[in-house]
Structures are given as structure tokens and as C-alpha cells.
């Protein structure tokens, strides 16, 4: 029987507490927020407005009295700030006050809700909750230039009064539910609003522990943001509990992580116009279909090819691939460019970079690949250089491999340069540039910045690409991942991995896998039969790392084993050449294991495991290896040899023969890469291009004579239509970008799941939240019991798309019967109208959160809101037209005795201006406000040193810059360096989910209002704005305070103005308590 929801809440709160300490609250039976929403009867009473009946009946019970209605002057100021975040103009205030229409207030509410100012104000509340920011946070706090479309979406959604369920669904899964709408795409900016560790993603791969931690934290933020925002359920701390008694709840938390497991935060394209979006969609569809037909056509053609045609075709394809690679395919461009020296002031400066091979190695050749930058593929390649090798890191005694120091070396372009070593032994290889290259962009004249750069330096010993221990250089620029010494040996040639350059295929096999055993101490063996007796010098074993299973480096690698060598297949009289049976062998993970053998002769090599590995998720203990290679000297003698074994599963990607197929579980083994590299370096593009033409002519002739002409014609026709589709796609206006939660396809360390076809990452319950300790795998789901009708396990079909998980979650959250969603949103709206929610912890409806002060009212509102189409504007109308809202905010001695904190709402709450309203009001009354809506954010700082860790210098901003005189909701929000002025006034911290803002009173606030350069400047502009009016002091007061000053006040301020000027007077007005507090 599944656990009841009441049990779950207890578990969740218990988990939630584990990261801090237990909050001491008595655990009660049942909990209000998990009760299903049931029809509530409105209490009987005099008031028309149902809210008032709930409030008044509760007040009565407490012996409290509702306060009288505030006058119109107070009400209009209150309403303007509440709905717009700005004051009314004196004219607007006066006409409202004088309006004889008894319905004037109701009309005013409607008018304010119709204005775009309303959406700007209320979007800011939402952005607080979802912690919207426009930089990544953490170290290297880089900007997100495309975050703003989400902010505009939220403003639009409020202004258009988007039904709340649609608002929910768009933000979680709009890209799937409404893919051809702008809102559908940009709304998913929601998933990406939070902080993101640039270094942990862009500089550390997912395979490293630090990289795993970063990605785990990332998903945690997505889950937390979604659940706290929409359901006020704090699931986030169920990630680190170590209580084995209650595994269920950790499973729920991780099944929520699983919903987001395919996503990263990145820019994704979208179309502004829906017709273009659908046109693009249509063309993509056509393209897909055409490509399918082309594939079918190809199949038919292929079927009738003669062997000669096949061979020709292969040749042509291979040459074309290489040429394409040599020209540089921008798509696969790596962010790691290579080594880059510091800039020298003269071209003749000598610079060097060298590789330490760790030990002495035989050096047969060295390959240099140019760096790809600024349009050059030989960027920084020195005009003159020499290559030396030495056993001394200082190169006091060296052998010169290549000397090109007396005349300029021809520019190599994209072709790697092959330099032949003489086979001498050396530990260090040094490349010294003696005539430097001028740094510039392609097409630009030479500059005086003399540099030495190199994309890659590969040292080859016979057929082996040697690994390097480290790279040192005379000097180096280590900049933002692109340039760095270590990039000289990172396997990225220019900007491409070697693998992509020589177009070597990925592995299609995992390797060898024995049958499963019951116990780990079971003997298993696998054996290679060489064609004849050989002298064996080296055995290299590559651990398995299956691709059709969770990523498990070292999968099945034996815990204990020995290697036997014999002349006879049955191993009689075998030598034990390796013995690792006395203690457990450290699992090598992804690294090959090398055994150097001292020239022992034999024909049969058997690896015999005496203790088996039993990785998590495996069917039991077994022996698995991806590749085993036997060397005689430097020659591999085991490729495609016969393999036998005690037993095997020979299924799927596993087969005995895969033990010697030249592939690890992942890719071609390095020898072939070396060959490919040598081939590439020897390839003469010109010749091969000529050759290509000849081959093509011959190929076409042959085709005509042997294949059905109709098929050929069809092929040509299809090719044409594909190219027309492609040009149609290219002709469409460029897509815009939004920073969103999306399937990312990147290179380098930040790959995302695009390369895996968007397949979500496998998610496991992490024991104590440690990424190094994954336990049971989980499937996508959520917390049970909240929507009784829906299973908390999403039960998606096997072949579901990643987005189906998000659609399922969105459906669950927006479900009519969800006990949390509807209560959560009406409570948030209430919170902003009264300064305090019916539940005072808007993000937390759990046991540790507050209980509702008016549970029936909350439920009634939730149902009313839900059943009226989820219109937030209607909800505003309902609340704003209530007597409860319209009360004065005055103190009442007797009421205060019973309820000093005004929990029961016997008065309205006086509220202090939030940071944005304060800034907006100052701009507005100063006549400087620019009401331009939407688009990229304004930046009221100067950005310095953007390359590495940007410095956001607020004090260098010019407060008179009109570009920055927009509403505060359009301010560019930096996470690591908050705006000092706004922060002083408690603006939301975009690193936290802010369900309600702090409200502090500090001397720093007084200083900021008096002296901040923005305030000082705007006091002057305010004065200029009103100086022409007949009674500027009075007008200034009315504009800022929405009240006619008293005679005493006027006298005082006028005399001050005469003495110290109007600007100084305006500065006083900005500093009045009455300016900062709304009655």
C-alpha cells in the first residue's frame, strides 16, 4: 500500500530539516494544506463582499472591530503603489477625490489594472519568487544577455491576465505544449532563472566530481524553484538524509530531479512572429521528411551498387570529410584553442613552449597544428622556429629535430605540420619560435603585437601518441579557458578533436562480458589466441564502460585476477605472467592498464578472474573488459584474433570478438588515431581535391551504367528540394534567443544532453546527497497524495521524450485537485495586498511553515479563483473592492491590545516603499521616467574586466544617463554584486527564492536617500521639473506625497527653499517619512 500523504509530509519536513536543525514544532495529525479543497460556505453577514464576511466574522469572534474606510486621498495613493508601484499625479488624485460617482473607486481599480504599469509592478513580485537574475553568480559572474525575454513574458502575462493554469504550464513545459508561440518558448526562462556555476559547468566536465556536484546543484535549483514557487512545498532538503528507514521521500525528491534531468541553462532560439515560427517548424518537418526519403532512395541505390562503386564512394566520402575537416567545421568548434604566448614588442623575440613526456620516450615524429582564431587556422604559428628534444628540462644539451630559423616557414593554413624525429630517446620536446607572428584578425593589417600561438603539439612514438605530463613555457596567457598551456596537449587540433578530424567512428561495441555469477568469488576467464607463438612485451587492458547502461567506468573489471601465458590452448604448463590475486586491484575506471612483460614467448594469453566485480545495477558479479591488446615490441599482434572464454553473454553490444576489435567501449583506440593524424598531416589537400574530381567523374559514369536511372534522377531531384528547403530555412529572419532551461548541445566541458539526443541523465537517489554515492535509480515523478487522482510516478512510455516529463509535472501542478497550487497563488496575491499572507510563509505550506490565519477564507478564495478561470485581475478586483482592503491603517488602542500584530486585519497595514517603487517614484516625479517597455535591461554600472571575472562598477555610472531612466523592473540584475542603493532598501536577493522581502531601517538608508548620487541628481531634476509652476514647493509636495501640504508645512518648506534653493527642498521631500510610507 502506498504511504498516505500525511506520512509523507512528516518525512519531507524531517528531511528538510536535516541540513539545518530541527525546528521545534509539535507534529500534529493531518495538515491543512494537504486537505482537498472543499466547497466553503461564506459566513452570513452584512457585507456584500465575501472576503469581508470571512474577515468580519473572525474579528467578531476575537472581539475586534473592523476599522473605518480610508478617505479617497489615502486610497488612491495606496492603490497606485499597490498596482503600479508609483504615486498618482496631483491631477489624477484630485479628479478622483472630486469625482461624484459613488463607483469611482471601482472604476479606478479597473483603470489601473488595464495599464501596462500594472504588469511591470506585479511581474517584479513574481521575479522575486523565482529569483530572476541576469548574471550567473558564483565566481566569474558573467552576464546573461538573453535572460530578459522571460522578464518581458512575466510582465506580458500579468498585463494580459493569462489564466493561471496556462501561466504554470508555459513556464514548465511551454516549449512542448505551445512550441510555435513566443510565450511557449520564452516562458521556460523560468527554469533557468537561478544561479549557475560557470566554472563547475564550463571548465569542469561532468565526469569529474566537482562537475557532478555543479550539475546536481543545478537540478536542485530547478526542482526547488518549481516546487516552492507553484506549490509552496519545500522538497529541497530531501536530498541529503541518511535515514534508510524512509527511502520513499528521497526517491520523490530525486524523481523530481529526474523531470529536469535532460536540461541545462543555456540560450535557446525562438521566433518573435508566430507565422515565422510555424514556417520554420514546417520547413524543419519537410526537411526531416525529405531526408527520410533520401535515405530510402540511398538504400535502394546502395543495394544495386557494384563493389567498385562502393569502393569509389568510400574513397570520395573519406576525402570529402577530410577536406571539410581541414577547412574547419564551425559546428564542432572547441572552446579550447591552444597555447598563446604573451605579447612581445619585437618580432625577433624568442619564445618557447615545451612538453614534458614524464619519462624518456622514443620520438619518431612531432605534429604541429595551428590555432584557429580570428579567421586564421594558423593563428600565431611562428614564421621561424626550431624543434628540439632533450633529457634536461632546461635544454642545456639538446638535439634539434627541425630547424626552420633561417628562412620563413610557409604558412601551413589548416594543414598540420609533420616534423620527423630521428627516433632518439628524450623526455622533453621544446618548440622555440624565433620570428613571431603579428596578432590580428583576418583581413586586417599587421599589428605590432608579436605573439607565438599553437593549437596542438602531438608527439608520436612509432604509432603511439604520447601522453604528456605537463606543458611549460617561457610565458603564457592563461585566459578564460580558450588559451592555456595545457590546451597545447588537449587533443584538440586547432579547434577540433582529432576524432572529429579524421572522422573516426565511435565505438559500436562495449567489449567482452561473461555470464553472471552468483558469488563474487567465482572463477571466470577469457583468452586470446595469437596466430602463432610470439614474444610478448606488453599487454594493455582497457576497462569496459558500457554505453547502453549507466556510465560505469571500470564496469566488470576484475577485483582479483592473473594473466597466464602458454603455448597450449588448455593452458597446461602456463606461466603466470601477472598475479593480482592476493589483494583487491584498484578499479582503473576509465584508464587503460598496462603490463610490461619481459619478452615472454607464448601463443595463448588468458586473463583469469578469481574475484569478480559487481557494479550497481548489474545483473550480478561478472567479468567484463572492453579491449585487450597484446604487443610484440611496438607491434600489436592481437587485433581480431580468436577469443575464447569460459562463458559469455554475447548479446547486444557485448561479444567475445569485441575484446580485440580495436575499439574501447567508447571510441577507436589511440593507435588508429595516430595513423589518422599522420595521414592527415601527409594529406596534400590540393592533390586530393584534384583526385576527388577524377574519382567523381568515374563514379558518375559507373553509376549511370549500373543503376536504375530513375533512382538517380530521384536522387538529384531530392537533393534539389532539400537544398531549396535549406535555403528557405536560411532565408527566415534570424531567431531570437532566450536564456532558458533547455537541452544543450555544447562542446568542451559543457556538453549538455544534446549529443545524447536529449536523453535525460540517469538520476539516482544520492546517499546523503553525495554525488559519489549514487544508490537506486529513480524514474520521473513527484510527491504523492497532493493530487489524489494522479499517480505520483508519471508512468511515461519507454520511448517518451524528455519534455513529456515536464508536461506531466505541469499537468500535475496545474491540476484542479492539486491541494497546494491554488492555495499558494491566492495567498501570494493576498500577501502583496496586505503585506502579509493568510499564510505568513508563502513559500512553505508545510508543518514548519505558518498556519493560515483564515483557513476558510483561503480555501474559499482558492476555489473561487480556480473556478473563475484563474484570472489574477479578477482576484485583485475582489480583494481591492473589499472593505477589508479599504480600511484605514490607523492604530486602534483596544484592538491592538487583543491583536497587536494585526493578524486578523482590524486595520490595513501601513507599508514602506520597496526599493523599486522608491526609485521609480523618484524618477517619475522628477519628470525623468522613460516608460519604454521591454527589451534588454538597462545597466546602471560600468562593466570592467569582462574577460575573466567582470567588475560591475556602480559608482562609475552617470545618474543623468537617460538610458537608465526606465522602470526598475528593467534594471540589469547582477547576482554577485548587487546594486548598492537597491540592496540598501531590501531589494530581492536573486540568489534566494524571495517570497517576502525583508524590511529594515538603517542609517545606511538615511545616508543613501540623502547622498546617493542618483538621489542628489534627481532632487535637482525634480526641482527643474516643477520650477516653472506658480507654487513649486506645494507642487513638489503634492507630486511626491499625494497630499496638499498644511499651511505650516508650506511656510517651513518655502522659507527653506528661498534660503537653500528648490533642489535642496526637493531633497528634503524625498527624505520625509511620509514619502517612504504608504498609509
Amino acid at each position, binding site marked *: 500500500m502506498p504511504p498516505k500523504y500525511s506520512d509523507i509530509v512528516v518525512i519531507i519536513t524531517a528531511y528538510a530539516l536535516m541540513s*539545518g536543525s530541527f525546528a521545534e514544532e509539535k507534529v500534529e495529525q493531518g495538515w491543512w494544506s494537504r486537505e482537498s479543497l472543499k466547497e466553503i460556505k461564506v459566513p452570513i453577514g452584512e457585507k456584500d463582499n465575501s472576503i469581508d464576511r470571512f474577515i468580519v466574522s473572525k474579528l467578531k469572534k476575537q472581539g475586534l472591530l473592523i476599522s473605518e474606510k480610508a478617505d479617497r486621498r489615502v486610497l488612491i495613493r495606496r492603490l497606485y503603489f499597490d498596482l503600479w508601484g508609483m504615486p498618482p499625479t496631483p491631477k489624477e488624485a484630485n479628479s478622483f477625490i472630486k469625482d461624484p460617482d459613488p463607483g469611482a473607486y471601482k472604476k479606478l481599480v479597473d483603470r489601473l489594472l488595464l495599464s501596462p504599469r500594472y504588469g511591470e509592478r506585479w511581474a517584479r513580485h513574481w521575479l522575486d519568487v523565482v529569483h530572476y537574475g541576469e548574471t550567473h553568480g558564483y565566481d566569474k559572474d558573467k552576464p546573461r544577455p538573453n535572460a530578459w525575454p522571460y522578464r518581458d513574458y512575466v510582465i506580458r502575462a500579468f498585463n494580459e491576465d493569462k489564466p493561471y493554469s496556462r501561466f504554470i504550464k508555459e513556464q514548465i513545459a511551454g516549449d512542448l505544449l505551445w512550441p510555435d508561440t513566443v510565450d511557449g518558448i520564452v516562458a521556460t526562462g523560468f527554469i533557468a532563472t537561478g544561479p549557475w556555476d560557470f566554472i563547475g559547468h564550463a571548465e569542469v566536465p561532468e565526469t569529474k566530481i566537482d562537475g557532478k556536484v555543479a550539475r546536481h*546543484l543545478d537540478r536542485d535549483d530547478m526542482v526547488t524553484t518549481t516546487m516552492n514557487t507553484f506549490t509552496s512545498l519545500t522538497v529541497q532538503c530531501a536530498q541529503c538524509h541518511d535515514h534508510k528507514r524512509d527511502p520513499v521521500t528521497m526517491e520523490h525528491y530525486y524523481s523530481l530531479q529526474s523531470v529536469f534531468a535532460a536540461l541545462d541553462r543555456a540560450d535557446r532560439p525562438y521566433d518573435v512572429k508566430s507565422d515565422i515560427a510555424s514556417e520554420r517548424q514546417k520547413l524543419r518537418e519537410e526537411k526531416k521528411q525529405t531526408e527520410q526519403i533520401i535515405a530510402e532512395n540511398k538504400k535502394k541505390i546502395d543495394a544495386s551498387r557494384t563493389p567498385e562503386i562502393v569502393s569509389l564512394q568510400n574513397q570520395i566520402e573519406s576525402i570529402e570529410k577530410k577536406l571539410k575537416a581541414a577547412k574547419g567545421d564551425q559546428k564542432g568548434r572547441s572552446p579550447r584553442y591552444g597555447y598563446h604566448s604573451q605579447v612581445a614588442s619585437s618580432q625577433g623575440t624568442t619564445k618557447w613552449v615545451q612538453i614534458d613526456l614524464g619519462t624518456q620516450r622514443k620520438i619518431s615524429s612531432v605534429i604541429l597544428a595551428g590555432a584557429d582564431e580570428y579567421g586564421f587556422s594558423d593563428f600565431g604559428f611562428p614564421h621561424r622556429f626550431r624543434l628540439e628534444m632533450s633529457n634536461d628540462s632546461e635544454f642545456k644539451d639538446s638535439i634539434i629535430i627541425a630547424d626552420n630559423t633561417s628562412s620563413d616557414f610557409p604558412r601551413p593554413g589548416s594543414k598540420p605540420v609533420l616534423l620527423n624525429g630521428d627516433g632518439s630517446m628524450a623526455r622533453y620536446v621544446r618548440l622555440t619560435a624565433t620570428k613571431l607572428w603579428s596578432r590580428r584578425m583576418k583581413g586586417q593589417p599587421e599589428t605590432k603585437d608579436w605573439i607565438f600561438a599553437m593549437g596542438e603539439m602531438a608527439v608520436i612514438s612509432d604509432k603511439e601518441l604520447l601522453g604528456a605530463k605537463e606543458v611549460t613555457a617561457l610565458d603564457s596567457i592563461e585566459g578564460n579557458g580558450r588559451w592555456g598551456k595545457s590546451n597545447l596537449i588537449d587533443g584538440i587540433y586547432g579547434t577540433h578533436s582529432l576524432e572529429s578530424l579524421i572522422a573516426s567512428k565511435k565505438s559500436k561495441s562495449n567489449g567482452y562480458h561473461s555470464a553472471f555469477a552468483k558469488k563474487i568469488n567465482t572463477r571466470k576467464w577469457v583468452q586470446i589466441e595469437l596466430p602463432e607463438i610470439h614474444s610478448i612485451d606488453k599487454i594493455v587492458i582497457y576497462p569496459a564502460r558500457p554505453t547502453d547502461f549507466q556510465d560505469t567506468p571500470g564496469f566488470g573489471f576484475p577485483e582479483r585476477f592473473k594473466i597466464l601465458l602458454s603455448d597450449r590452448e588448455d593452458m597446461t604448463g602456463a606461466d603466470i605472467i601477472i598475479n593480482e590475486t592476493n589483494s583487491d586491484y584498484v578499479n582503473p575506471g576509465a584508464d587503460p592498464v598496462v603490463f610490461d612483460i619481459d619478452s615472454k614467448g607464448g601463443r595463448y594469453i588468458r586473463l583469469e578472474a578469481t574475484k569478480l566485480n559487481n557494479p550497481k545495477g548489474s545483473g550480478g558479479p561478472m567479468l567484463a573488459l572492453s579491449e585487450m591488446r597484446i604487443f610484440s615490441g611496438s607491434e600489436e599482434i592481437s587485433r581480431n584474433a580468436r577469443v575464447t572464454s569460459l562463458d559469455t553473454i554475447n548479446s547486444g553490444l557485448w561479444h567475445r570478438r569485441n575484446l580485440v576489435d580495436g575499439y574501447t567501449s567508447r571510441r577507436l583506440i589511440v593507435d588508429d588515431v595516430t595513423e589518422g593524424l599522420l595521414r592527415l598531416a601527409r594529406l596534400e589537400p590540393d592533390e586530393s581535391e584534384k583526385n576527388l574530381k577524377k574519382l567523381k567523374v568515374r563514379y558518375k559514369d559507373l553509376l549511370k551504367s549500373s543503376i536504375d536511372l530513375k533512382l538517380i534522377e530521384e536522387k538529384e531531384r531530392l537533393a534539389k528540394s532539400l537544398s531549396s528547403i535549406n535555403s528557405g530555412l536560411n532565408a527566415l529572419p534570424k531567431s531570437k534567443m532566450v536564456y532558458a532551461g533547455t537541452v544543450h548541445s555544447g562542446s568542451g566541458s559543457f556538453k549538455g544532453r544534446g549529443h545524447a539526443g536529449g536523453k535525460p541523465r540517469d538520476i539516482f537517489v544520492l546517499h546523503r546527497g553525495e554525488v559519489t554515492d549514487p544508490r537506486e535509480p529513480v524514474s520521473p515523478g513527484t510527491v504523492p497524495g497532493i493530487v489524489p487522482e494522479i499517480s505520483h510516478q508519471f508512468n511515461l512510455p519507454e520511448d517518451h521524450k524528455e519534455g513529456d516529463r515536464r508536461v506531466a509535472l505541469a499537468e500535475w501542478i496545474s491540476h484542479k485537485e492539486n491541494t497546494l497550487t491554488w492555495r499558494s497563488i491566492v495567498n501570494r496575491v493576498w500577501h502583496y495586498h496586505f503585506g502579509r499572507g493568510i499564510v505568513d510563509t508563502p513559500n512553505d505550506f508545510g508543518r514548519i511553515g505558518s498556519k493560515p490565519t483564515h483557513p476558510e477564507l483561503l480555501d474559499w478564495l482558492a476555489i473561487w479563483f480556480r473556478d473563475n478561470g484563474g484570472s489574477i485581475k479578477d482576484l485583485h478586483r475582489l480583494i481591492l473592492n473589499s472593505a477589508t482592503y479599504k480600511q484605514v491603517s490607523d492604530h486602534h488602542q483596544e484592538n*491592538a491590545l487583543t491583536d497587536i500584530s494585526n493578524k486578523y486585519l482590524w486595520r490595513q497595514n501601513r507599508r514602506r516603499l520597496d526599493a523599486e517603487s522608491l526609485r521609480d517614484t523618484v524618477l517619475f516625479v522628477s519628470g525623468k521616467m522613460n516608460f519604454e517597455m521591454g527589451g534588454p535591461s538597462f545597466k546602471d554600472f560600468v562593466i570592467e574586466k569582462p574577460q575573466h571575472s567582470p567588475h560591475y562598477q556602480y559608482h562609475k555610472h552617470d545618474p543623468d544617463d537617460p538610458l537608465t531612466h526606465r522602470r526598475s523592473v528593467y534594471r540589469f540584475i547582477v547576482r554577485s554584486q548587487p546594486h548598492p542603493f537597491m540592496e540598501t532598501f531590501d531589494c530581492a536577493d536573486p540568489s534566494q527564492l524571495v517570497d517576502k522581502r525583508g524590511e529594515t531601517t538603517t542609517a545606511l538608508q538615511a545616508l543613501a536617500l540623502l547622498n546617493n548620487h542618483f538621489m542628489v541628481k534627481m532632487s535637482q531634476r525634480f526641482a527643474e521639473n516643477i520650477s516653472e509652476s506658480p507654487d513649486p514647493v506645494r507642487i513638489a509636495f503634492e507630486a511626491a506625497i499625494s497630499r496638499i501640504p498644511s499651511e505650516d508645512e508650506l511656510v517651513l518648506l518655502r522659507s527653506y527653499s528661498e534660503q537653500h534653493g528648490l533642489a535642496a527642498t526637493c531633497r528634503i521631500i524625498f527624505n520625509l517619512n511620509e514619502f517612504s510610507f504608504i498609509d
Partner: protein
Amino acid sequence: MNRRDYLWKSGGGLGGIALSSMLGADKLEGSNSGPVLNQPHHPLKAKRVIQLFMGGAASHIDLFDYKPSLIKRHGEKSDFGEPVEAFQNGLGPWMKPVWEFKPYGSSGKMLGETVSKLGEVVDDMAFIHNLIGKTGVHSQATYLQSTGFDRPGFPGMGCWVSYGLGSMNDNLPTFVVLPDHRGFASNGPKNWGSAFLPAENQGTIIRLGRKNPIPDLNPPPEADYISKSAESDAQAILSKLNREHLGSRAGDTRLEARIKSYELAAKMQLAAPEALNISNEPQYIKDMYGIRPDGTTWPKEINYNEEANHFGRKCLVARRLLERGVRFVQVWSGCDNGFPRRNWDSHEDINRDHGPLSYGMAVGASALIKDLKQRGLLEDTIILWTTEFGRMPSTQGSKGRDHNPFVFTNWLSGGGIKGGVTHGHSDQWGYKPLDRDNPTEVYDIHATIMHLLGIDHERLTFRKDSIDRRLTDVHGKVIPEILA
């Protein structure tokens, strides 16, 4: 006290009156602002803290943690006895300390020559050589040491101290941050942000050397319309009109608090410049701190005297702030990771950056200890020297060292700390703790400091999103071995 209580204590309804950073003894009647602890959990040994934070990660083995094995095995292939996942794979040969080590003081503590200035006060210092971090990522490591959590969203240690104990003055902030003059270290102001604690507990940045070391303290120079008399008349009018406004709005203590905040601001305008002005300090004091005359010009390259001058100025100002009742001062050395290096992240060349930075730090820190001692302030002021993590005993390049989050050093001095002791050891290489099962963690350092301040670190909490948060998460034990 939880967040709700805190916010609703004031009769005015919304929001708490949170003035404590400026209020101190001058607490508002009727409000419940100020420290949350009415009295310490137990008798306190110290009242003030100075945290010296080395941004970029300072090398323990070149400065404080003497490793003869490295000298013996210098240049030999490094062998850690286990696979090591280094940040930038800097696993070259063993590399001996760049500086020669000698014994100092009656405790005979071995120090690298570059920090020999600390030898003069070494008998007042307690070293911890078995500190461990969590990751080798700068940002996370900086957060961990500054806030106790490896991600954003948590208050700095100074914020917790301010929150718990409140202020000891009525005209200066409680928690002051003196950043490196070149810029912020990793995470910038988030290291001292108040996060979920009331905002008045956040660190106030004072940028020495800038025209306006405290932003907005006075009107900017271009605001020529604000004359002295306009300013004082404005204060009078504000006070009058705000009091009238308050008169008709009884029961809302926030309004009174706001009036008070203007009076406090005015006091701060007088007190802060005086506190920051070191021109009247005697010459021998300036010399001791390595301070050179204003207007001294410096070479472009990072150099010894300039580092001493800047760090010394921060230390001297820190002392002056403490004397005037500031409770917590954080002094930073090293800014973010730009090039050329101006922080402790010496991947390329320890000597080049660590040399000047450590020399400057040692001059300032030893002067600070001596100066506090001669004024009788050392006995109730804790000094904590910390950094992000340590550096590897193997080389990176030929002269640099990679990150070592597996072990590093902290030292403490002053109020309640036993001098001349070393607690916890690293292994023979300075690679991991000698006793791997019993390392020291930042939580223990934080717990110990809180303990000396009279605070039980497990009992100073703040409820946020259902969790009673504290500085030490769910960890932390006081380290008795370094208590006097």
C-alpha cells in the same frame, strides 16, 4: 526567535525594526531590535573578531607548514600513493618550499622566511595544519570559508556575529569589510551579504584609498547645492516634519526608528572619517605596519613594499575600527583571478605572487597582533587567518602549485586562543591530514570562534524555508586544544 517572531515583534505590524547595526545601547523603546541574544550562552572570552582572508588560496607548505620530506625529495616524481583528481592536473615532481624555514619564538615554530615577520608574535599564535575543504573550485571554497556553505544564499560569519551580539557602538557599523584595493575576490559582496538574516547585519564595505571610502556618507562633490547650512537646516526640518507625521500615527515604531536612523547617520558622518584617518598615528606605528607616505608611486609589477603598504593600512584601520566599537572586521588580500596575478592563486609561480603577498600580509598581521597587545585589546579580540584552500606539494609548471582542497592551514590569535601551539598535522607531504579520519573543518573554526564570543553555535539559529539555519550547518565542534 524565528523569522516570523522577528518580523512581527514590533507593534507597527510590518517588518521588524532592524536598527541594531547602528543602535547598540541606543536601543529604541518599544522595539525589539538589536542583538537576538540578550546575554551570552556562556561567559565570553572575546568580543571582537578580525578575519584575514587570502583570496585565491595561499600555500600552507611555503609559509607555515614545514615539510622536510619535500626538501629531501625535491624534484623527485611525486607519488601520492593514490589517484589524485587535481584541479588543473598539477601533479609534477615534489617541490620543496620556496622559502627556507627557521624556528621562531620560544615555541620554536618553523616559519617560511617570507613570513618571518610573524616570528616576532608566533608565541601568540595557534596553528591548525589539518584543515580540509570540499572542492578545489574557488567560488565554492570561498563561500565555504566565509559563510560555512559552499553555495550562495548564506550569511557571512560576521553577519551571524552581528545578528547574535549586536553592536558595541552607536556611530559605526557592526561588521566592516575592507576588500583588496584592486577588487573583490571570488563571489564579491556575497561573501559578507546578510542573505536571510536581517539586512542590517551585512558587512559594510569600506574602500580605503577611494575618495568616498564609505559610499553615500556625504553628498558627492558635484552636489554643490547642498551647503553646510542647507544640510543642518534640512536635518532640523526633517526631524520636525517626521515627528508631526509620527504624531498622527501612533503605534508604528518603524516611523520613530526611521527618525532615529537619521540621527544615527549624522553621528556616523562624524565618526567614520575620524576612524579612517590614520594621518595622526605616530610614525613608528605607521612604520610597524609597513605604511609608506600617501602619494608614494609604485612599480607596475607586484612588489613587496606596496603589498605591505596596502595590507598594513587595512590592518591599522581595522585596529582603529575595533577600538571604536566595531565588532567584526574582515580584511581581504588578493582580488579575482585576472592576469597578471594579483591574488594567491599561484598556478604558475609561487615566488612571483606569494612572495610579495605573503610578505605584505606578515608585516601587517604581525604589526596588528603587537599593536592590539600593547593596547590590551588582544586579550578579547580574535584574529583568524584563513584562505580558500591550500596548494599541492607537487609542482604545476616548474614553479607553480595547483589547488589543494585536501589540506591547508589556518591560524588564530588573541582572545581566548592559546599562543605558541600547533593543533592538527598534515601528512609528510602536506597533501592530506596526517590523521585522515580526524581533520579540522571550517565548521570547527567557526564553532570555536563563536564559543569564544560566548555563543553556542548550535543555538544561534534563524528559520528559513523550514530549516533552522546556523553558521555551522549540522556540523562543528569547538577545538579545545587551541583554547587558552
